[in-house]
């Protein structure tokens, strides 16, 4: 797939109990500005509900906004729940992830990790890269 020219579909999600959604809402709009189709799940999703929405909506990438420190538990569960449905939609995390956690998350199948202050073009590039690598 030529991810530069084809329209991508992205599901952005808040998984867990954290209610801070400024980041995810801003990222949704910045992705839309870049011509990407975005679906936002709303708050309080579980790994299962995120995986189900990702498959139902036939998205190319899932973006998780994680700020509460639950990423080491919940993000791998999202990857597993997606794979359990027989698909391999790449998962990108944005938010607060200490550098020390990155290797373990990558090993669990997380495609990309974006930290605080990442500019829009970096976010868009990470999403496009994740989609491109998944479709190879």
């Amino acid at each position: 797939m030529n991810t530069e020219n084809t329209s991508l579909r992205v599901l952005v999600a808040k998984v867990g109990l954290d209610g801070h959604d400024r980041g995810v809402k801003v990222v949704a709009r910045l992705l839309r500005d870049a011509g990407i189709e975005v679906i936002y799940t709303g708050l309080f999703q579980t790994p299962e509900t995120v995986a189900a929405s990702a498959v139902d909506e036939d998205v190319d990438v899932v973006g998780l906004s994680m700020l509460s420190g639950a990423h080491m538990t919940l993000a791998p569960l999202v990857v597993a729940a997606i794979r359990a449905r027989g698909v391999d939609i790449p998962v990108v995390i944005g938010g607060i992830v200490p550098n020390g956690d990155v290797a373990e998350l990558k090993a669990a199948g997380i495609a990309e990790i974006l930290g605080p202050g990442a500019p829009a073009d970096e976010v868009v590039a990470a999403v496009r890269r994740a989609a491109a690598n998944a479709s190879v």
Partner: protein
Amino acid sequence: MSDELRNDSGIEIKPLYSAADLDDWDPASKLGAPGEQPYTRGVYPTMYRGKLWTMRQYAGFGTPESTNERFKFLLGAGQTGLSCAFDLPTQMGYDSDHPRAEGEVGKVGVAIDSMADMRLLLKDLPLDKVTTSMTINSTGAILLLMYELVAEEQGVPSSAISGTIQNDLLKEYIARGTYVYPPRQSMRIITDIFEYCAKHVPKWNTISISGYHIREAGSTAVQEIAFTIANGIAYVDAAIAAGLDVDEFAPRLSFFWNAHNNFFEEVAKYRAARRIWFNIMNDRFKAKKESSKLLRFHTQTGGSTLTAQQPENNIVRVALQSMAAVMGGTQSLHTNGFDEALSLPTERAARIALRTQQIIGYESGIVDTPDPLAGSYFVETLTDEMERLALEYIAHIDELGGAVAAIEAGYQMDEIENAAYEYAKSIDNDERVIVGLNKFAVNDDPEPEVFPINPELERGQKARLGEYKAARDQAKVQAALAALVEAAKGTDNVLYPMKEALRVDATLGEISDALRGVFGVYQP
């Protein structure tokens, strides 16, 4: 740089302010004296000459024992009040063994499931002397009652304890997200708390009407005070509708503001907010007691202003923000740790944050006289302009049917989302400079030390909860929860059956589930 300059609230800043800007301006009606109507200059006559603000650092993580240790460290370092952070399951009414709690136990605050946890949290703390602020909303009544019960066990009567529960659900729907029940049911619990505290815990601040989180969600400074004061109006309306007298509960209402980097805008914001609240309580609600008309507030420096890049720069940001809060007349202050864009604060960062307040308080001379910026052409013009714009928003929310109706229509959320988007764009296109992020960046930013959370704590917390549940009289728990359900279905104050349920060792999750069964959960 363009000739036109606007502050973060979109107010145009002129190249120069002079006496002409205050031509029609009457200091007697606009300012009065500190401690006098309309309280623009502060709620007390002597302000910090009498007593410095309460230095109250927000802390809480992991187990009750580890948070108790941090509290003792902070009190030992000269902090004068406590402020407790709870983990998300505690805030959302889930016990640590609930499936939805997985991965969240003890992460953003301390895990409290039961009276056993609360006893450990407050162990050896002088509850008759220290005041405690608890950032707790949907489950605020439960935590307040647990605090009261532990104080009783320690021999401290309810009339002697003092502190604050945040208990501001309207801003949860608007900005922070830890809501459980629908808005109108939440308002009922809140007014039950007002009534209970007026009778039994008279020194407790029953609500901290919070602009902090509205600002963190991306609002402007004007929206922060406007949406928050509109929420305040809704709480007063609800309590009056429930049959309470305004002067019975209004003196225990308190506010919570943010402090961002635009120094004069922030100072003007605090001053404008005090004047607006005075006028509302005086004119709209006809309060008689002076203490009903005072906007007393806590301030926290702005978490969203911190950068993960070159984190030491945040020490300077926090110092500027704290100075604004002090010049704006805050009653208490939390200063963020410089590493908080990355994790909870390390002990070193927490100490520097507290020292920042102490340097302002003891070395700077800022505290020597109240409201030192009063009469400044610029600050007075800005204060008036922020008041005018905030009142426009409040009038619009009134037209929509008040804060609750406006929330149900999504009004405040849309406004905040737009402001947050514009802010992000302004950084992205370099219109706005964030030092160390989009200007003066470095490539060799060293990885800072981050605060570690013990991954074993979730298991330990679940084990303690299991033992607690096994050791109690189950029939008594069921009967107490059934009584709570009955009260919730009718109009009786729900705090009394909640307290009985806690006495027979019901847990936070069980009490919340009982109310969920009656009130339902909010789906935006």
